[in-house]
């Protein structure tokens, strides 16, 4: 497990080793720590916008004795999987714009709420709404509990979620169907208070998109 101090230390180390400015986006539990919703995380999830930046960070981590792990156990039969690098109990998941069935849209980039500079490493923390959406995409153990924490402790803007679902569903996988399942599980199993209208809206978007695609 990694806490916020350890995370800042490793970002600082990477920032000192870089020779040019590199931007990345922190998602998942690592981002939640900066919102004080979580104390520690299993892995540090980072998204890059281009391969060159990812390779540069990967090389630095490899020089720091991080070794590659197989993605098969964590992301079984999923596409757009990250590069997993691990050292002791610290693990980095390095994504490239696409995160499983989700992608980092321009609107998500605009919604970034925190920008932290560690030397030449510029870390952008995605908004809480986007953390929820990304948790639905990765669907790992503990993701539902994390989303429950966010909704109950801080609260989120549901209209941002529904707008982004429409964007994500366009010409890609029917993300709204995954989100609908995810929200229903949260509501029924974890008794999270999710507005009925939101679930209805996500369901409608999913149904409409499925009809459209089956008709093609």
């Amino acid at each position, binding site marked *: 497990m990694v806490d*916020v101090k350890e995370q*800042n230390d490793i970002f600082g180390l990477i*920032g000192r080793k870089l020779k040019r400015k590199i931007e990345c986006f922190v998602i998942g539990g690592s981002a939640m720590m900066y919102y004080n919703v979580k104390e520690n995380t299993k892995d540090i999830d980072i998204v890059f916008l281009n391969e060159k930046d990812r390779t540069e960070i990967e090389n630095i981590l490899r020089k720091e004795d991080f070794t590659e792990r197989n993605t098969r156990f964590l992301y079984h039969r999923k596409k757009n999987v990250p590069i997993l690098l691990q050292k002791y109990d610290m693990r980095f998941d390095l994504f490239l714009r696409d995160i499983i069935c989700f992608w980092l849209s321009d609107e998500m980039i605009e919604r970034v709420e*925190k*920008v*932290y*500079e*560690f*030397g030449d490493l510029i870390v952008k923390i995605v908004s809480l709404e986007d953390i929820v959406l990304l948790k639905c995409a990765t669907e790992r153990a503990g993701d539902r509990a994390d989303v429950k924490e966010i909704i109950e402790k801080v609260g989120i803007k549901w209209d941002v979620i529904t707008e982004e679902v429409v964007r994500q569903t366009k010409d890609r996988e029917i993300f709204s169907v995954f989100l609908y399942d995810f929200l229903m599980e949260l509501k029924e199993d974890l008794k999270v208070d999710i507005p009925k209208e939101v679930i209805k809206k996500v369901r409608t978007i999913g149904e409409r998109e499925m009809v459209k695609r089956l008709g093609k």
Partner: protein
Amino acid sequence: MKKCIDLAEELKGLHTLETIQKELGIKRNTTIKTVSLLRKEGLVETIGGGRKKRWYRINTVPFRKYGNSGLYDMLNKYSRIKLWKPYEHRIFGRKMSVEEAIVRAVVSGRIRTVLVSLDLFNHVKNWSRLYKYAKEYDVRRKIGALYDVSRTKLKVRRMDERIRSKLLKSKDKSKYIIKPFKSKDFLEIQKRWNVCVPLNKADLEVYDEW
């Protein structure tokens, strides 16, 4: 702590002392004590004070700030005009100087950020450092032009002559601070520096309020 979180949940949002008092139905002194308790747990952030009305932002998760002040904190600290932060900017492992804040405000490409940054010229202590950052971000002539603009309205320290001549001799790739804006008023400054200043005289009138 549990009691405080329950209280914070009840009061979540932006408040004045009076609204808290009204919401909880308690005396003024008890309200001050309650806010103090919440602050100890890190659940309150205070905005304003002094001549302005004091606001309390109450949250259910503790407010924690990591790293050192970033661009917007620096601008709000040193400028009389305050800026709404589009995002929280923090710097780790070092501290941002006033000189760096001016240069980065110019690079930001936001009109209000540029306007607010004019007040920081009076806090510049190290003109060589300002030149160093201006060179790094390729905005040397722009910084020179904005310095001259700030001197037309604000009380600003005199710039080191050596730095001024270095800035005048330099070449920037683009002549626009914010494309495609140029001023109708500061024609002489624009000509001297070969830079398009995005501000008019009327824009600087916000400083008259102070």
